[in-house]
């Protein structure tokens, strides 16, 4: 579904990604974790075609939709307009399934997206991405700035979407525990390079991962 090989991305002289390779199979949930400034956002922006790679290859079979870091809703537009704009490429105009998925958005459909809470905006951003009918959904910082309860709810939604529709998920997350619990496989990105990869249930017990990303906590 998604294959990235030897990807190099630079900002002027600064190399943000230095030979990154990763893959995600159909229906798979893949986590990408790593510290601030590692290059995670750079990677998804390259997948979306916002940035051009200096070297390497990106192959995506099917449509990619991208929920950007910081949500990036159209703040001055209504929730409904945000969703409709998500269908720009797919020409989809039927927003009802999104309200069915996120019932909380229904009563807010006429509200300006910029006036909503962080959690509601994240729902709008995910709903907007889903309007593109994607086979691959990339989410950059799902939990950033959101209350734990809201994050759990969103994570449940994503797990369901993946299970029911066979949608492939690329989840970028600061909260490594959440990412490792939700996903099948994970990559650790550090200063532009993949340093660790493997199934999530193995990485949960990996000493290096535990030390750096799980606060060293010992948990069975």
């Amino acid at each position, binding site marked *: 579904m998604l294959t990235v090989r030897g990807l190099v991305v630079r900002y002027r002289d600064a190399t943000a990604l230095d030979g990154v390779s990763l893959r995600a199979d159909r229906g798979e949930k893949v986590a990408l974790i790593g510290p601030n400034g590692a290059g995670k956002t750079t990677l998804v922006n390259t997948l*979306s075609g*916002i940035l051009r790679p200096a070297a390497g290859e990106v192959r995506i079979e099917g449509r990619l939709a*991208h929920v*950007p870091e910081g949500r*990036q*809703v*159209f*703040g*001055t*537009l209504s929730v409904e*307009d945000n969703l*409709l*704009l*998500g269908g*720009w*490429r797919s020409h989809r105009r039927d927003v009802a399934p999104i309200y069915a998925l996120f019932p909380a958005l229904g009563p807010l459909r006429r509200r300006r997206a910029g006036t909503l809470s962080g959690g509601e905006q994240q729902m709008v951003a995910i709903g*907007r991405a889903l309007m*593109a009918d994607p086979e691959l959904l990339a989410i950059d910082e799902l939990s950033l700035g959101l209350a734990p309860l809201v994050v759990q709810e969103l994570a449940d939604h994503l797990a369901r979407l993946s299970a029911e529709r066979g949608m492939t998920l690329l989840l970028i997350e600061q909260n490594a525990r959440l990412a490792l619990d939700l996903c099948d496989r994970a990559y650790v990105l550090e200063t532009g390079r993949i340093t660790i990869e493997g199934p999530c249930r193995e990485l949960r017990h990996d000493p290096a991962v535990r030390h750096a990303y799980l606060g060293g906590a010992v948990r069975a």
Partner: protein
Amino acid sequence: MSAFIDYLLVGIATGCTFALLGTGFVAIHRVTRVVNFAQGAFAVLGGFFAETLLSHGLPHGLAEVLAVVAAGGVGLLCGLVALGWGRVPVMASLVITLGLSIIAEAVTLLIWGGTPISYPGLGGRDLVILGAQLQPQYLLLIVVTVVVLAGLAAWFRWTNLGRALTACASNPYAARLVGIDLNRMGLLAFALGGMLGGLAGVLMTPLIPMTYDGDVQLAINGFAAAICGGLVNPVGALVGGLVLGIGEQMVAGYWQASAETGVALVVLLGLLLWQALRERETMS
């Protein structure tokens, strides 16, 4: 009293042309961040196009519509040059539009010469409103402006394309993510600006003869109107245009005609100063 009503009505009508020009500024700036100095040239060309088409025997209505469409085409060309398919920085685009307006002036002078042009507007007897006499063309100008601006507002709100333009203004990064082509939207905005400017020119030429170098004056007035809406709000541009139009007529009527031009500049300067001060306040 009837003089006051007279100034008021004429002021509203000229204010409408400023509002059309101002909305053109807004339409382009919202999407591209470029202040299009060629906006006044669109109006001049609209007037000249209409005059030429009419003098070649095209009927009223058709000639004016074609002139507006042609002005839209000029706007599109202007956008192509100024935006350079997204490879030109905003500041450079701004200077390019200034250059284009000078070229447009020269070309207009070459093709049509230096004599002011005009053509008959909407026929019929003068309307008498509260004791003031008004040519029907003034009313036409006001009605068309209201209809066009209302239609434009609806178009921005309710159509896919209009919504996409608004999205580019609201969040360009997110617009790219959902697949909107910012370069095309920029060109569309320029075409729209061209049509709005052209419409202003087409409607005002029967009332105030158009000259090849009238663009600067028009651009200043339109820009001042647009600044009232912070260059992003079309309603602000409408209000600004009306205030400016009425203000200028009052100054010209009760004080002296030559001061008319100064009003726009004073208002413009005041608004810019006020906005700069406000920005400083929010920053500190």
